[in-house]
């Protein structure tokens, strides 16, 4: 079973050792910025023949884009993979979990994000208005 490690951050050797990945694991540098072009990223991941795809990072809890990364694996047609960090922590990917759980987390985030943007838009306008009158509300 071949494995490819897309290294977002951290040390590939530490990640391979912490997760007991095969010694012939292919390591490919991967930048978060690549996620801005989702279509080409999916194409890129799909083109890797690896059975298991691992996104490697320094620390899982400090890594953004968990659901997006799993969504990329899903769209690329991968069936096995996980997000893994140097400390041995991992977040396992499965197509079913991504469709039925992660997608809802993402949808919740989208709705909440719209709320955050709207809240900031209103607050900033109110602050600009009240502070010009002198004194915060």
């Amino acid at each position, binding site marked *: 079973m071949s494995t490819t490690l897309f290294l977002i*951050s*951290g040390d590939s050797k530490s990640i391979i050792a912490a997760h007991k990945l095969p010694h012939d694991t292919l390591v490919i540098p991967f930048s978060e*910025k690549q996620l*801005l072009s989702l279509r080409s990223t999916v194409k890129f991941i799909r083109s890797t023949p690896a059975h298991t795809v691992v996104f490697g*990072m*320094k*620390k899982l809890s*400090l*890594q*953004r*884009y*968990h*659901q*997006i990364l799993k969504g990329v694996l899903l769209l690329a047609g991968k069936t096995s993979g996980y997000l893994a960090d140097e400390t041995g922590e991992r977040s396992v990917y499965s197509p079913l979990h991504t469709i039925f759980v992660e997608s809802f987390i*993402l949808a*919740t*985030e*989208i709705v*909440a*994000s719209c709320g*955050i*943007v709207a*809240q*900031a*838009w209103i607050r*900033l*306008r109110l*602050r*600009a208005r009240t*502070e010009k009158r002198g004194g*915060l509300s």
Partner: protein
Amino acid sequence: MKSIFLRTDFFGHLNTGGSFSHIGGFLDGMIELGHEMTFTASAQCYPSGKYDFRHIPYPFLYKNFPEIPCLAYNNTLQKKLPPLLREIQPDFLYQRHSEFVYTPSNIAKKHSIPFILEANNSEWWWKKNWANLFFDDILRRCEDVHFHAADAIMVVSEVLKQDLVRLFNLPPEKIHVNPNGVDVHTFTDNIDSNAFFASLSAELQQRWEGKTLCGFVGTFGEWHGVEVLAHSVVHAVRENPNIHFMLIGDGKLRGNVEKIIAENNMQNHVTLLGTVTHHLVPSYLSLCQILLSPHTENTDGTLFFGSPTKLFEYMGMGKAIIASAVGQIADIIKDGHNGVLVKQRNPVDLAHAIIRLTQEPELCHILGKNARYDAVTTYSWKHNAQRVINVVQSL
């Protein structure tokens, strides 16, 4: 005095780079002056126990879209900061400005605490020119209300002060210039470079043995002039094949630098060390005879507004410095006194300055000695912190 330092950006797992040196240096400077500092951030980025650290993590839910987590962090701060203010009762609140975070000024005002904002750039300008910006109008408004609400703004250079006055119509008297600084105990002229050289790999020893080393450290950003530096290699080496360049760091333009070096077939005259653990940087720099700061004006034609930490670190090392005559660098480096100034974006001028210094070791010694003196007497972090205290006391 008691103060809380807020680091509000999302830096993930990173713990190296200019911002870490800057914040650590400032905190050390404040503590050295006898002030009490509490440091808050979204993750621990200094050795545990070094500072009174309070963890204010980014909200868990917002992880998949850029810029949103920073906006959401305002709500986190609104919940977590007031109890901390009540507990610590600081004499002032100090925030390192970061994108989309605009509530600390509001919170400080509600608690009647002076609010000092350290702005190292306008994030709006920065992202518009050098990164991806999705919520243009909101970021501009965040900065507008935050800058106007701050009691004082500390900026690193006069150019940046003028930029903020122009961009946000701010009163100039509220903005105070506080150049970056250096830890003069770490970046020092008394490192045993021979012992460090002996500890290096055989490959590096062989590569650098008997060479005149010219060093650079940086994140290979647009403003660092690394491409100019790469182009200067061929000119310098043509005149003096004994010159070898040591480039420390990694970043956006590293690929371009590698390409220029390969095109000129200069691989044997340049060592790209990549990212080096921060505590080893002074040891590497101690091996160099000349240190380079080839900064450039901004790509959009505006003036260089930075205050490069590396320049002050070079000064602390007591080495001969060659720097571009741009922005604050031209004020701090006095040509022929504590360094040599060259024209920006001019690899030939840079190479000539390098060749000249390799021929004049006595001049190198004098330049380095003067640079070290200036670092110790004016640009240590203690002096940087004192300038902030002076501003707070004047409010």
